[in-house]
């Protein structure tokens, strides 16, 4: 991603953090980035909405980069899932900008997130698939079905924990070994 686009995106993020999505104009972005409006429209012909979409995409990628770092050094697949879920949950609840936008203007963000979430799910499934195969799928389980199911569940828990306390390592371990992996992988030790 070239430097100009990146600067605009980061400026846009600052504006949204300050005033929310609805009140962030191309003028605001230009001022924050120290550029002219014309420069913004040249880099993003779709205008304000295109910048907002790109900002969401960038923030999402940034998060996944950090997530990937976090799960490195995991001892086994279960631990990788536990670390990933706890980190993701923590990131979301600590994300001030996300929380504020979700609270004050969810209808601005959610259509973008929903389109993104299909792509995110497919991305997660693609990342998980080789680990699943390596870990060993339960007999008769289709690898693509398993990866898709797992990706769906992961996204579901981190966006809406429900009864699960995702800050408690024991609960996360129990969650991973039951609702996430129990039917998906071969048991961790023979019955």
């Amino acid at each position: 991603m070239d430097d100009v686009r990146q600067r605009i995106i980061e400026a846009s993020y600052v504006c949204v953090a300050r005033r929310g999505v609805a009140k962030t104009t191309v003028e605001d972005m230009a001022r924050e980035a120290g550029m002219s409006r014309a420069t913004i429209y040249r880099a993003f012909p779709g205008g304000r909405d295109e910048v907002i979409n790109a900002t969401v995409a960038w923030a999402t990628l940034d998060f996944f980069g950090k997530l990937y770092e976090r799960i490195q050094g995991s001892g086994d697949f279960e631990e990788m899932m536990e670390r990933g879920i706890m980190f993701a949950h923590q990131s979301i609840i600590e994300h001030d900008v996300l929380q504020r936008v979700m609270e004050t203007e969810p209808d601005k963000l959610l259509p973008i997130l929903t389109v993104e979430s299909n792509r995110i799910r497919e991305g997660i499934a693609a990342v998980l698939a080789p680990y699943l195969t390596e870990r060993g799928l339960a007999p008769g389980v289709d690898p693509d079905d398993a990866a898709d199911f797992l990706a769906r569940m992961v996204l579901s828990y981190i966006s809406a924990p429900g009864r699960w306390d995702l800050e408690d390592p024991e609960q996360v371990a129990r969650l991973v070994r039951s609702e996430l992996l129990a039917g998906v992988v071969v048991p961790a030790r023979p019955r």
Partner: protein
Amino acid sequence: MSGAPGALRVLGDDKVVAFAPSADAVHPDSESPQRVRIIDGTLACLARHGTAKTTVDDIARQSGVSRATVYRAFPGGRDEILGAVVDTEVARLFSALGVCLGSAEELSQALVAGIVEASVRLRDHTALHFLVEHEPGIILGHLAFADSDRLLAIASRFTAPFLARWMAPAEAARVAEWAARIVLSYAVSPSPRTDLCDPAQATRLVHTFMLPGIEALQAAAAGPIDITPHRPGLGRSPN
């Protein structure tokens, strides 16, 4: 009476009226016939025109009553009606679920029947379908984060007692929530490979993923978590 103002929320400066199902929305019989007629009339309007173009006049005409009657039944006007519509539809869904969950003879049958019923009703709900297509902001506003939590809690509260025929109440509550997650996920973003409206596919999902998970939940409740040979055990830090 359902349809209390607590079911409503106004979002932001756009004066978009949104509505979240209230936790007590499980009493369809508490509605008077007049209110039911108006609610059904509203649903018909929503299915054709969505919320933006559904006025009290439209509702009155569709319901075959006067404006005055509408306002007598719903003094809060359009906002109150929309809240009541949500409450009623949620109640109807869980009422239908209660029938198939109650008549199931074993756990997997209950899970499959419940998942299929919920998925079919969500898919075939014409008003919901219109809103998803044309006014996604309203629907999506309630399908993520805190509102998802609320939906899951309602679903769990309602369906857990049926599942408790086969497991302890604490597990039943978790499994009920899990089933609701599954229905929600596949309803919001369908998968070409798994159609939960199809009993055969729902059965495959229940048998492949849910039954082993339920066993694991019950085993975990019964004693310490299984540890694998290559992990030293619990009590170590998550780092």
